[in-house]
């Protein structure tokens, strides 16, 4: 399988918008053509060739090596193919991802998977705040697809989440699932303060006890069969975060946020 490999030479001074560099957008382009693509960095535009060594042959896989947290918008709007990143990345990883798979060996900044429509995003390290959340003004965050984070996630995971699945293998920060509209978030580690704040609908699945807002009501402990469907759906996902099923279908169900009449659920495995 042919692939293009972009190796970052040195960390840029100001964040660089890497959204033009996706496998679908680079399809059929020569190394010279790719090198000439201009990338926005602050108020300047830099040719990709100034930042990256470009090798390989255009195919449906793009590899970015030696990446760092100054590379923003990696895989943003990508539609098809596989994007492998070795290293850390900056903000807006996989924003608006339409289809395809993005894998990052390191961590990612804020607003990863915002506006993501479908596809798979897998981050081995930690991610910043607002994973799968909406940017200011948007009423809906992530719209679909699967996000897996092996490490920790920051605050406001899935704020305004509209659809899709977010799995966090480590801990999640404060206000996890805030203002969530639908979809499913599962956190294997701990969550910070006030999970589910202003939640409307959707499911937040937690492996352990959490300090819930007082505006969630306890609906008791139940065996919920849909969790089996969930586990089976995740059967092929290669991540600890995906193995929620062994915790079983027996959960304590809290419903809220009643403050805004929400019927979201926080399920805590027992």
């Amino acid at each position, binding site marked *: 399988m042919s692939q293009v490999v972009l190796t970052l030479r040195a960390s840029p001074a100001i964040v660089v918008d890497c959204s033009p560099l996706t496998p679908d957008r680079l399809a059929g382009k020569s190394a010279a053509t790719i090198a000439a693509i201009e990338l926005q960095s602050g108020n300047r535009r830099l040719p990709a060739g100034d930042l990256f060594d470009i090798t390989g042959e255009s195919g449906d896989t793009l590899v970015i090596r030696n990446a760092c947290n100054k590379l923003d918008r990696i895989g943003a709007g990508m539609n098809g193919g596989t994007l492998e990143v070795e290293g850390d990345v900056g903000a807006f990883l996989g924003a608006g991802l339409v289809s395809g798979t993005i894998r990052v060996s390191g961590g990612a900044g804020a607003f990863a998977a915002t506006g993501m429509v479908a596809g798979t995003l897998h981050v081995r390290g930690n991610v910043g705040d607002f994973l799968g959340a909406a940017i200011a003004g948007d009423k809906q965050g992530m719209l679909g697809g699967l996000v897996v984070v092996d490490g920790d996630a920051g605050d406001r995971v899935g704020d305004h989440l509209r659809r899709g699945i977010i799995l966090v293998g480590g801990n999640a920060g404060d206000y996890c699932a805030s203002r969530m509209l639908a979809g499913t978030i599962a956190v294997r580690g701990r969550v910070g303060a006030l999970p589910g704040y202003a939640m409307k609908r959707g499911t937040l699945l937690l492996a352990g006890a959490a300090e819930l807002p*007082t505006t969630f009501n306890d609906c008791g402990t139940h065996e919920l069969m849909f969790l089996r469907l969930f586990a089976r759906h995740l059967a092929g996902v290669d991540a600890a975060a995906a193995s929620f099923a062994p915790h079983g279908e027996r959960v304590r169900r809290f419903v809220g946020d009643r403050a805004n009449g929400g019927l979201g659920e926080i399920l805590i495995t027992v």
Partner: protein
Amino acid sequence: MANRIGAIVDHMNSTALSRNLLVLQDSGWIVTTFAEVRSRADFVLIVGTETNSRFPRFAERLIDPLDSPFSDGPMQRSVVYLGARPKAPADARVLDCPTNKLGEVFGALRCLVANRPLQAVRVAGLDMEILNGLADEMRKAKYGVVAWAAADLDQPHGELIVQSICGLVSDLNETTRFAGLPLGGNDADVTANQVTLWQTGLPLRTGFGRGVPEYDAYHFGTDRLLAGRNADVLLWISAFDPLRLPPETDVPTIVLGSPAMRFTKAPAVFIPVATPGLHHAGHFFRSDGVMAIRLRKLADSPLPSVAEALTAIEQAL
């Protein structure tokens, strides 16, 4: 000038300001202005701890006077303070609760107002019965007001508290009239936001690096830009208040400021400027974002205004 050089525009207070702005952008709100509060409000809930010290004339001008064009005798006005040991008059009704629990308190009030049963018996240390009484009072108010200063809700994601306040206000308007009153306007923060909005279509934290306006409420905050070293120059403007010094940073800093500024670390460039409303005319938006006040020139100054200084810089570019 930002348009010309591709800079990002932010305000020193915009972390606080954005607590309101993010709510406006997400759900909107029902709000009112000073004269309505003074003349109409029969119930006022003041949220936060520092309202009276931040806005010393707030109570004196708006809360204390009980004459109203709409009542034939003195008005009845209930005033309740809510927050972490709020600085309130000695005889005031005070509900003490930590700032980080305010969102839950408003959440519980929303449940009570809408008759949605809650299991909790205490919220943020407040008995549900007290909150129930408060909710009842709010429902019975003819024109209720909740006032808050975003600067007081100083914690990460403070906008979620503001959103709860606004949600409660909106619920109450199903049956009676109620309004929020956001307090702010210091250091021309509201003014800067208004002008940025109307000229570009987007609020503060808008950048021009791409040749088009680009708004990023999160990454374009000054602190974050400096911490991530994603800016190579900081231009700090503070013509009103000599105490508002630029943040300590090793990013080269240019200051357009009051000549009274005293720096611990000298900026790369310091251009003393005149004070609006003292040395030259200008405009200033009051807290509610409706009333713009004309600032008049009262005295001469040899110093340039900020606008003159910026124009000169731009022409020299």
